[in-house]
């Protein structure tokens, strides 16, 4: 493999990894605060992409505006899912909320099959996105550069919110100890709703960029990327935002580089993600950046 091919693979890995990272952040934030793995997150990812499709085909609004509206609408869907499926189970055993999230996942997927039908749909891509840029023999689609840059910006924005605002302070407090947060007057339900909103918005952004990169929509498109992002979140340490980002990018690299170096194993590509998950759970269950939850007496 020559240098140019390697650079090609690396850029593809970076793009794929950034997309996984954005989804993984949503998983990790919700887990950090609620100790809940939100299985419906992969469908939120898919809905974000579909809203853009709907907006573009049914309205005459300019495309960038459709994207912004889709992200906001999807954040709304995420908040509604929390309100309807998770909030009533706040005091129930954790497994109830988990099962509820699986139910929501199936529900959203099948609602989309009903509304949008299962046929793969074309994604509108403006012409400037269709032209690859040539650097030597390396061909880069604009979107390949666009995704990591935008992802970094979104993540920086998120870090600002979590570490420099009162809402973020509330999020960190709730993830440390939800009972005490209630007692200390933190508006727990509102902050949880905001967390879902932010996580869903990031998933929608990822879904839209995914659809631009791999321009085909199907109601099941969220299932596998969502699951891989979940693995990335676990790998990076579930509950840690930095972990989700590192985990996502790493998984992207592992996936593409394995196929690049061992093309005969390309059929087993998904298996590597799962092997990673099993490895992490066996050898370092808290992940790269995870905190050991010690019960202090």
């Amino acid at each position, binding site marked *: 493999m020559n240098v140019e091919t390697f650079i090609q693979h690396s850029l593809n890995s970076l793009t794929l990894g950034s997309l996984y990272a954005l989804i993984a952040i949503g998983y990790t934030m919700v887990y950090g605060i609620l100790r809940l793995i939100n299985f419906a997150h992969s469908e939120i990812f898919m809905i974000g992409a579909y809203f853009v499709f709907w907006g573009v085909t049914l309205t005459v609004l300019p495309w960038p505006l459709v994207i912004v509206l889709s992200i906001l609408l999807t954040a709304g869907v995420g908040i509604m899912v929390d309100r309807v499926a998770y909030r009533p189970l706040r005091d129930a055993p954790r497994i109830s909320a988990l099962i509820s999230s699986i139910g929501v996942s199936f529900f959203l997927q099948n609602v989309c099959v009903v509304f949008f039908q299962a046929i793969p749909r074309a994604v509108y891509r403006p012409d400037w996105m269709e032209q690859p840029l040539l650097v030597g023999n390396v061909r880069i689609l604009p979107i390949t550069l666009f995704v990591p840059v935008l992802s970094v910006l979104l993540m920086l924005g998120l870090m600002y919110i979590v570490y420099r605002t009162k809402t973020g302070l509330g999020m960190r407090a709730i993830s440390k100890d939800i009972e005490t947060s209630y007692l200390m007057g933190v508006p727990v339900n509102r902050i949880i709703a905001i967390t879902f909103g932010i996580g869903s918005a990031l998933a929608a952004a990822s879904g839209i960029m995914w659809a631009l990169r791999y321009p085909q929509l199907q109601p099941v498109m969220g299932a*596998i990327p969502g699951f891989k992002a979940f693995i990335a979140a676990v790998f990076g340490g579930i509950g840690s935002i930095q972990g989700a980002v590192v985990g996502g990018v790493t998984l992207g690299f592992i996936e*593409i580089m394995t196929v690049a170096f061992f093309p005969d194993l390309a059929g087993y*590509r998904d298996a590597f993600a799962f092997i990673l998950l099993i490895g992490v759970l066996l050898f370092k269950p808290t992940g790269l950046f995870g905190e050991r939850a010690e019960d202090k007496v």
Partner: protein
Amino acid sequence: MKRILALCMAMIFAFAGMAWAADDTVRIGVFLPLTGQNAFGGQLELEGVQLAHKEAGTVLGKKVELFVVDNKSDKVEAANATKRLIEKEKVQAIIGTYGSSLAMAGGENSEKAGIPQVGTSCTNPLVTQGKKYIFRVCFIDPLQGAGAATYAYKTLGLKKAAMLVDVASDYAVGLSSFFKKSFTKMGGQVVATLNYQSGDQDFTAQLTKIIAEKPDVLFIPSYFAEGAIIMKQARELGATFKIMGGDAMDNPEITKIGGKAVEGFVQTTFPYHPEMKEMNATAKKFTEEWKKAYPSKEPNVNAALGYDAYMIIIDAIKRANSADPAAITKALAETKGFPGVTGSTTINETHDAVKPVGLLEIKDGKNTYVGEIAPEL
């Protein structure tokens, strides 16, 4: 007391239900992928079946009842679908399905229960091999692979081929091996064979490797769901080689999803197209009826196969003068020269239909029927 009452009511309804499953209807089951990866093909075939049912709704003086079950493009669901059709709906024949893996999975139950199953577009030879009750109205993949190879090597003069195969699909694995066999037999060289899984969306790693091997043609025996994106990604990575595929790539949305990337794509297909130059009488009738029933949709070869599958069962029932599954099976096996939309259908010893291999090419954004190729086996 309440429980006894409930039990009595349940038994009354059960017996009543059984009484209604009388001999005055002919029950035909249909299992197709209406959701999931292959939903598009399944939907079209169902519409073909329904069109035929509208046209020929009674046979031997009895009404024909259609029972449709969605196999969700999933092998397990396919097996469940035929089980349900056989055991719950007590059908006398089954139509299905699009997708060889699904046909094989569902066919296990039909074979065991002795219910004749007529496949629409499942082309892998294993679907009918060694089976007594499974048939199909389409040709099989050794023919298709040879047709594609003949067109590539002899007609287009392409000497080096690469393949990108879906390892999770019996259809893809089979068709790619038949293509390779024919292509190398003619003197061609397969320079690279790479794999992926159904549902994958990122093929950049595999395509980058393929491009490095400099083939003249890339053969992708995939389903339309992945096919359009593979072509798009290949062109984005700078590939200029010809791309060819098999019948499962047929999908009117392909030009919308693939845009300029799919220009020049050639696929083998079954010998029907609404704009083919020489149409037989049944094909003309089918095209007219379709345009009346679905004025906004183009008639498609999958629908034609669905139509043929239904009609061939009705024909078999007429010839056997009975709707008994064993009689239908015998009559199906003896089908000779049945005038189908996709051509004159004769069921051979392996229960497959012998048909010419058609070719479709995307020219100027339109899927055009180029003609037929005589495969060199």
